[in-house]
């Protein structure tokens, strides 16, 4: 899948997207800042959805959109680290923090990118079902990209392992992916727009 195509970031200053999704591991403070930026960006998508009803719905949706990602970070990532450590995978808390921050920042960045379109669609579509469909599509897209970032980064850490051990890790990673999807969906389904709010 990798190719020789040059990335299109200008040489002087990498874009916000490049910095948020960069595979370079940084210190804990920078990683937490990256995580915070991702959650903040996800809130923009929530604000766009909340514009359908206005008022308190703006805050509800902003918090809800970020909370889905935050839940995966807080509840899922430590559990994944423990499980991978149990099968003696070469992971460290710092590396897992970096992977988690990058994945959630990627998902948040995608949600923020979708926010202008989401605002237009949420405000102008009359049918609550269609509005809910559009919301689900955006959350699914961003969540999938975040999960893709996470699984590909973790798998890159496992390349040196013997095949049997790598298989165990991949099974755990698959289980974690299912858990992360269910957890994020559980939190996101508290959004009023997904419950048919006009």
């Amino acid at each position, binding site marked *: 899948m990798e190719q020789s195509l040059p990335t*299109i970031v200008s040489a002087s200053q990498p874009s916000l997207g490049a910095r948020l999704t960069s595979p370079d591991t940084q210190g804990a403070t920078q990683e937490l800042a990256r995580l915070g930026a991702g959650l903040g960006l996800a809130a923009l998508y929530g604000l766009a959805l909340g514009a359908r009803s206005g008022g308190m719905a703006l805050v509800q949706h902003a918090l809800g959109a970020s909370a889905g990602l935050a839940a995966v970070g807080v509840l899922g990532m430590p559990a994944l680290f423990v499980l991978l450590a149990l099968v003696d995978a070469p992971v460290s808390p710092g590396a897992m923090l970096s992977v988690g921050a990058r994945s959630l920042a990627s998902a948040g960045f995608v949600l923020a990118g979708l926010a*202008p379109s989401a605002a237009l669609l949420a405000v*102008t579509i009359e049918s609550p079902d*269609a509005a809910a469909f559009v919301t689900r599509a955006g959350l699914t897209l961003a969540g999938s990209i975040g999960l893709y970032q996470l699984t590909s980064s973790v798998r890159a850490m496992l390349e040196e392992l013997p095949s049997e051990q790598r298989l165990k890790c991949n099974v755990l990673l698959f289980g974690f992916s299912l858990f992360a999807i269910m957890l994020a969906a559980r939190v996101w389904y508290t959004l009023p727009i997904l419950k048919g709010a006009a």
Partner: protein
Amino acid sequence: MNSQVLQVFDELLRSPRRVAERSRAGGDLRPLFVASLGALVLGAGVFGATLATSRGGLQLLYSGLKLPLAMVGTMLLVVPAFHAIAAGLGRPLSFSGMIGLTLAAAGRGALVLIALSPLIWLSFDRGLSYHPGVLLAAACYALAGVAALDLVLKGVGFDARGLVIVSLFAGVLLATGGQTAWMLRPFLGRPSAPSVPFFRPRESSFWDAVQQSSLSSFGVYRVTRALSSAEGRSPNPPNPPGPRLENSDESR
């Protein structure tokens, strides 16, 4: 500057790869922006006015103004999504390069619309009716969209990851562009309408309209709930008493 703009115009048609490389390289993108925006406004304006030949009169002016507005508005809304999707999938591009790439793609698509305008005009002139006309216009948009996405694909890289990025972007573009155009309708104008409105009131959504036009072009007319209630009938009668023409009240 002028010669550079003209050169970009030519490249939009002949050398999409060179335009994509120009966007990626960064630097002075002003000629690219000017040429692409010019192509976008000109192409969409001509195509919009051509669509309105089915109705004529003031609709020609309105559609010629509104279609460029819809396309530029859509570009503004979808560029952040494109930027984020590409970055999230490991192809981070500079934001200005991304704007250049998207604008160039839209400009290329608009030039394709110019090429298709005579076909649209001739079809309406030869008596193409309203709903098939809507579908023909949608097919023209699709063709222009393919030409535009080809340029985008050359920009993000012609491989599996590039295809995924462009497919996801196309989904966002379709939903956003469709709804933007739906809000700014009518572009063709209702044939039976006594006057031409600049905007129609907000109602339904783009996808409902696509579904309805598709059915109507095959002679299947749905009875709307509102109309049925007004006439005291069930919305889904067991034996429909023949085609209902309430869809002709819609305009695209």
